[in-house]
């Protein structure tokens, strides 16, 4: 079972158009898809390039399945040709002067693993068929659409039977439909190959769709690593919660804690909010209340006032793919479907219901 363990330190000096940058990460990836998720310029691609061997880290060690790819202390730097990393570049990097079949043949001839002649021919045909490229095999990359290029790039990599897959924003510039079909192809590949796949992305939805684990990156460091749900449901810091953009966040104080009933109470914006028990926190602790936008339900205001409800002024409402996105004061937001929105139309103030189980607290 292949796995990646990498400790990387790489400093880039300040250049004309960019300030100095330091990458310092400790990455562990099991077979399955691990997303490196972060804004542009956070060092995601640099991490991939170091693992693939295109760049040499200043310090650290890269192990893939107990084979040392890089060790600064021992002076080991296995060249990229011997690392068997399948790398998908942002623009796919299919050789423009070769046809699709020749691109695959190039990979097959250097890999040289699965025999020559007829065997190789059969294997290439199999791959072309798997990726629905048989009819396009004679075309040059410039004659392919974005989705076809992507499948060709993936097929070319699989010819070499890589030990790990590195994907650098593979769906950039693709429309939603093509993305979906690529996700399906990638999932199939993951199940078939059983190797670690590192996926660089700054697309939250892509993370949700594909990733088994997520590493949230910013400014050259991992803010949080873990299984996808643990990262998205329990962000480790206010920064991550804000940055994910799916949370309503407000300053709060712990007013009550009851381990027996597994409950707690927070005071937030003058409201009392019940939530689950908060182990490791004390009464009077200050921090931030968080709830995911998708957990919040909205109704028209009435006179009744009870726990876990707050009435906020509406700032803005905009249509979005899943319905209507309503923005409230204090940077709160919620998404409601068109049907749910009809009774809310015209109200300046709306009531937000927050389910107790969805309340999450981040200490200061």
């Amino acid at each position, binding site marked *: 079972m292949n796995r990646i363990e990498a400790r990387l330190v790489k400093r880039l000096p300040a250049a004309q158009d960019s300030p100095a940058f330091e990458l310092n990460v400790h990455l562990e990836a099991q077979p399955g898809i691990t997303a490196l998720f972060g804004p542009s310029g956070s060092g995601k691609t640099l991490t991939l390039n170091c693992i693939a061997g*295109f760049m040499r880290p200043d310090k650290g060690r890269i192990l893939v399945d107990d084979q040392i790819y890089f060790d600064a202390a021992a002076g080991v730097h296995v060249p990229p040709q011997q690392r068997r990393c399948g790398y998908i570049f942002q623009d796919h990097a299919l050789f423009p002067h070769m046809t699709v079949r020749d691109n695959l043949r190039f990979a097959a001839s250097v890999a040289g693993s699965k025999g020559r002649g007829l065997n190789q021919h059969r294997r290439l045909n199999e791959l072309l068929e798997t990726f629905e490229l048989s009819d396009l095999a004679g075309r040059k990359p410039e004659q392919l659409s974005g989705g076809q290029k992507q499948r060709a790039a993936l097929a070319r990599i699989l010819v070499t039977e890589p030990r790990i897959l590195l994907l650098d924003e593979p769906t950039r510039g693709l429309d939603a439909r093509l993305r979906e079909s690529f996700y399906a192809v990638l999932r199939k590949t993951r199940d078939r190959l059983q190797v670690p796949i590192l996926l660089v992305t700054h697309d939250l939805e892509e993370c949700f769709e594909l990733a088994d684990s997520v590493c949230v990156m910013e400014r050259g460091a991992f803010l949080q690593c873990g299984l996808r749900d643990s990262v998205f449901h329990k962000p480790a810091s206010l920064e991550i919660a804000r940055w994910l953009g799916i949370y309503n966040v407000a300053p709060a104080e712990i007013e009550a804690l009851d381990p027996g009933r597994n409950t707690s109470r927070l005071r937030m914006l003058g409201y009392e909010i019940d939530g689950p028990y908060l182990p490791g926190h004390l009464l009077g602790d200050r921090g931030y209340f968080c709830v995911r936008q998708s957990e919040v339900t909205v109704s028209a205001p009435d006179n009744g006032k009870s726990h876990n409800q707050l009435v906020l002024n509406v700032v803005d409402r905009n249509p979005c793919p899943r319905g209507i996105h309503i923005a409230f004061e204090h940077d709160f937001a919620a998404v409601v479907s068109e049907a749910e929105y009809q009774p809310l139309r015209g109200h300046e103030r709306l009531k937000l219901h927050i389910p107790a189980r969805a309340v999450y607290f981040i200490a200061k």
Partner: protein
Amino acid sequence: MYRPQPREASAIGCRCAYARYNRSSQTRSNRPMNASSTIDWFPLWLSLRVASLATVFVLTAGTFLAYVLSHKTFRGKNLLDALITLPLVLPPTVLGYYLLVLAGRVSPLGRLYEAVFGQPLVFTWQAAVVAACLHSAPIYIKAARAVLEAVDYRYEWAAHSLGASEWRTFWRVTLPLALRGLSSLATLSFARSLGDFGVTIMVAGNIPGRTQTLSVAIFDAVESGNGRLARVLVLVISAVALALLWSANLVTRAPRGSAA
């Protein structure tokens, strides 16, 4: 016939006398161009031969150096780059002097050449090839470096990550992608090799029928008052150069409708 041997005097000192001697004795007596209407086309053929050979050398060695400069980092890279550029800025006489010292019959390099090929290098047409190389290599290497650097590194990285060695990546990926640029540079390099004068006359001399290239022949014709010959040769070399540059442009320009 008396031929001053470079070994007799210093290898350099006798050059002027040598050239003048040849011109006065051979050009006027053996090849009476003033009198008859026949034009000696030998300088043109020699120039074409010299330039072709020089282009072959510059393409092989120059492309290698350009690749090293564009793809490698090593100590002394800037110095190497400066050394390659040097012939571009030094006066041809200085370059010629260096060549005479380095490859003259008394120098180790010159002796080695003589031992291998059985004849000295200086004052032969082969020396004109060396001179033409010096004339065209710096520009070729500088431009080829830019062309090779312009090949998207991601194609090379992709080839590496597929397991292709650097050698294979160069032949199968880098070179094909740079071919259009390099072939237009090859044409330019050939045209430039045709035109060397200073270094050629220093190291190959001006021996009609043996080392007299086109540009040297023009100088010779003008100096000896043979205006007709000079005009013809000037027109010929201009036409050849124009044709070469034109074809280089045709090669460089992408065909219409291509996405590249």
